[in-house]
């Protein structure tokens, strides 16, 4: 039996609920009747995943809420149920602090899943003078972290220990199963603890309802009938859990913090100060066989300003790329030697997304022409700033400005609207080859010399016969025209609303224009938005 590790398992009941409450406490109004007992944890709370209850608090369970209920059913059973979405990341993230605290007390903690941790019990038992005191020390630690109701089970193997923890009561929160007594302890427990629904159903139909009955079957027969997975569960049921406890490896600290004392107030000084650390940062990543593809840079100034931004890279960051990103974030659109508003006291470089270095290795004959293009464009970016070099995508929308979007070189395009939708009301082909970055205001006159006006219903005062820029110079005769094509978007949103009429006109030199009459609350105005040249 030397193969089986004597294990200690910590179990925190209803951990998802506790995690959710720790991150975002409930604001419970003190009711006059039970103001004294209205502790935050007593409120009926349920976490929902895919429309079903994933976890619920003790107060909700008393009302009849249980795991697997539909939200509506749960709310019918408990009318003042508070419903929150279940977030697995939040679960793991909050349990990470618990793991860190346990590691300070006892080394070699294995995270089984959020809410359950396993430790080899031999060391702590020797240190605290017995398994029972070691378990009590663990419970006391969790109490000090503000996590009530934790249970500890100590037995041969993590599976038995977990079952021992689950059967511990609130009065005796540490349950020790003596060495070699695992099979006896597990014998009366139901087979449903094995967490294999197909096997459980089958065992029940074979008339086997307890773990002891399952363990009594000959091991070779179980292996022949249920395969290696079944044999493993059979060993668990017999208390022969041979899984070792693998200590949790703390992730390497890859962040890089550069503090400036005294604070620096010039961009070039800061970037120079960051240079050595950026080298070090990239080398540390390489030593862990990683490359960084997304980076977060946080900058603190002495006045307490804080700026943070994520930077993407089409391949992976080199040291000089990191320094460039710091400089761009500092200077915004200013020049390299411009002064800052207040001195920079700290720069923090955090790798947000890392990837194995093997996926980013340059081929034996180089990475092809794209590598060269990327380097050349990165050089231009370091001259002009990150937004200086753009790539273009066609987005969804009706106006010309909505349909074309530019993305800084290296960033991923995010399209708020799909260009695959039909977008009725967009301009007919061919599209204008020149779209003015800022529309030019124009005057449009009818044959009688008065301004052309289009009302809400698309009726226009007279046919356009002449237009000129707002400066009045260089007027053009209109030889052909089409319109008005009305466009009315987002009338419910005063900020983004658009109510306009579009005209295509051809002037006497054969150049065609797109003229737009925009109606606003303050009045309407003509502008030339694009030219068909």
């Amino acid at each position: 039996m030397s193969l089986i590790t004597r294990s200690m398992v910590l179990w925190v009941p209803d951990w998802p609920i506790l995690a959710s409450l720790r991150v975002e406490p409930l604001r419970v109004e003190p009711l006059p009747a039970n103001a004294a007992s209205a502790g935050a944890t007593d409120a009926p709370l349920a976490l929902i995943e895919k429309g079903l209850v994933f976890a619920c608090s003790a107060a909700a369970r008393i009302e009849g809420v249980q795991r697997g209920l539909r939200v509506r059913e749960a709310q019918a059973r408990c009318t003042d149920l508070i419903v929150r979405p279940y977030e697995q990341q939040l679960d793991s993230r909050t349990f990470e602090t618990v793991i860190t605290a346990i590691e300070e007390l006892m080394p070699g903690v294995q995270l089984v899943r959020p809410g359950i941790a396993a430790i080899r019990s031999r060391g702590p038992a020797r240190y605290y003078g017995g398994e029972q005191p070691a378990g009590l020390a663990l419970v006391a630690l969790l109490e000090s972290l503000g996590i009530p109701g934790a249970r500890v089970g100590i037995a041969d193997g993590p599976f038995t220990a977990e079952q021992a923890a689950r059967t511990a009561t609130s009065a005796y929160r540490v349950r020790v199963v003596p060495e070699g007594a695992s099979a006896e302890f597990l014998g009366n427990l139901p087979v449903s603890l094995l967490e294999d629904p197909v096997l459980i159903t089958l065992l029940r139909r074979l008339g086997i309802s307890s773990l002891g009955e399952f363990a009594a079957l000959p091991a070779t027969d179980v292996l022949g009938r249920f395969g290696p997975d079944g044999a493993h569960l059979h060993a668990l049921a017999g208390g022969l859990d041979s899984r070792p406890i693998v200590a949790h490896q703390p992730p390497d600290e890859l962040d890089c913090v550069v503090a400036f004392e005294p604070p620096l107030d010039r961009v070039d000084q800061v970037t120079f100060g960051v240079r050595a650390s950026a080298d070090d940062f990239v080398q540390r990543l390489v030593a862990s066989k990683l490359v960084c593809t997304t980076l977060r840079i946080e900058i603190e100034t002495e006045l307490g300003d804080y700026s943070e931004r994520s930077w993407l890279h089409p391949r992976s960051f080199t040291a000089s790329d990191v320094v460039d990103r710091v400089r761009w974030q500092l200077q915004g659109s200013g020049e390299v030697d411009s002064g800052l508003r207040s001195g920079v006291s700290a720069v923090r470089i955090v790798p947000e997304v890392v990837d194995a270095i093997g996926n980013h290795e340059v081929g034996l004959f180089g990475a092809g022409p794209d590598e060269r293009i990327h380097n050349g464009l990165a050089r231009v970016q370091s001259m002009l700033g990150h937004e200086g070099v753009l790539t273009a995508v066609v987005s969804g929308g009706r106006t010309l400005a909505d349909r074309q979007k530019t993305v800084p070189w290296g960033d991923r395009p995010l399209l708020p609207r799909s260009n695959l939708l039909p977008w009725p009301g967009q301009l007919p082909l061919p599209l204008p080859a020149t779209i003015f970055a800022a529309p030019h205001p124009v005057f449009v006159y009818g044959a009688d010399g008065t301004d052309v006006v289009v009302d809400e219903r698309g009726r226009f005062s007279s046919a356009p016969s002449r237009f000129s820029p707002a400066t009045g110079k260089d007027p053009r005769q209109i030889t052909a025209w089409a319109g008005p094509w009305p466009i009315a978007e987002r009338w419910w949103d005063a900020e983004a609303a658009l109510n306009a009429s579009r005209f295509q006109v051809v002037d006497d030199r054969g150049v065609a224009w797109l003229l737009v009459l925009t109606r606003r609350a303050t009045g309407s105005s003509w502008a030339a938005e694009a030219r068909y040249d």
Partner: protein
Amino acid sequence: MFEYGSMTLAATTLPEESAAPAAIIDELQSRIRSMQATKLDSRLLPTHPALAELLPGGGLKQGAMYSIGSPASVESSATLLLALLAGPSAAGSWCGVVGVPDFGIEAAASFGIDLDRLVLVPAPGDQWLAVTAAIADVLTIVVIKPPRQASEGNLARLSARLRQRGSTLIVVGSHSAWPQSEAMLSLSQSSWTGIGDGAGHLTARQVTVTVSTRAGGRPRSARMWLPDPELRFARVETPQTHLRAVG
């Protein structure tokens, strides 16, 4: 290799009776230039066939400069630019557009320019020449709209760099008349179809594209659809007049 012979031959058959030395120098320079053009092992970019016939050498040359529009005409033609870019881009070349904030992206995509291989630098500011040179190092075709006239020395350096790297430069805008240009393309007599007096919409346009070359000679011009109703660029088919001998 064989050009050496023809050059000495040309040098010996120089007309000696020319009077003014300036005229002789002009004559010699134009002859040297035309021979250099044939001597250069200039590879051609895949150019749209409608335009290729007009361009000297039968297409866009790598390492050469081209200009669109002339200072006389107010509007340079962005569609003509797109027509020049469409051929190389469809064949897999990267295009860069420097200093053109008004570039119609969706029109470019609809004329067959691959947006994945299009790089825009809308506001290069004062560093436009350095940016153009840096981009010409890595991209096959670069379009530049100079904000002002560049000095002769800078242009000579830029054109040397282009020749070395084999990238093609297209200069647009009102400062596009660069002496180093291989050819100057301009557009005239534009007429739109499909639009009436309050009816229809723009569908197609016929223009006359004129190409004048650096080496002098008669400008070549052709009537072209830019674009035709199917968004293609094509020569206008003139109805052939068949003469038949009678009597």
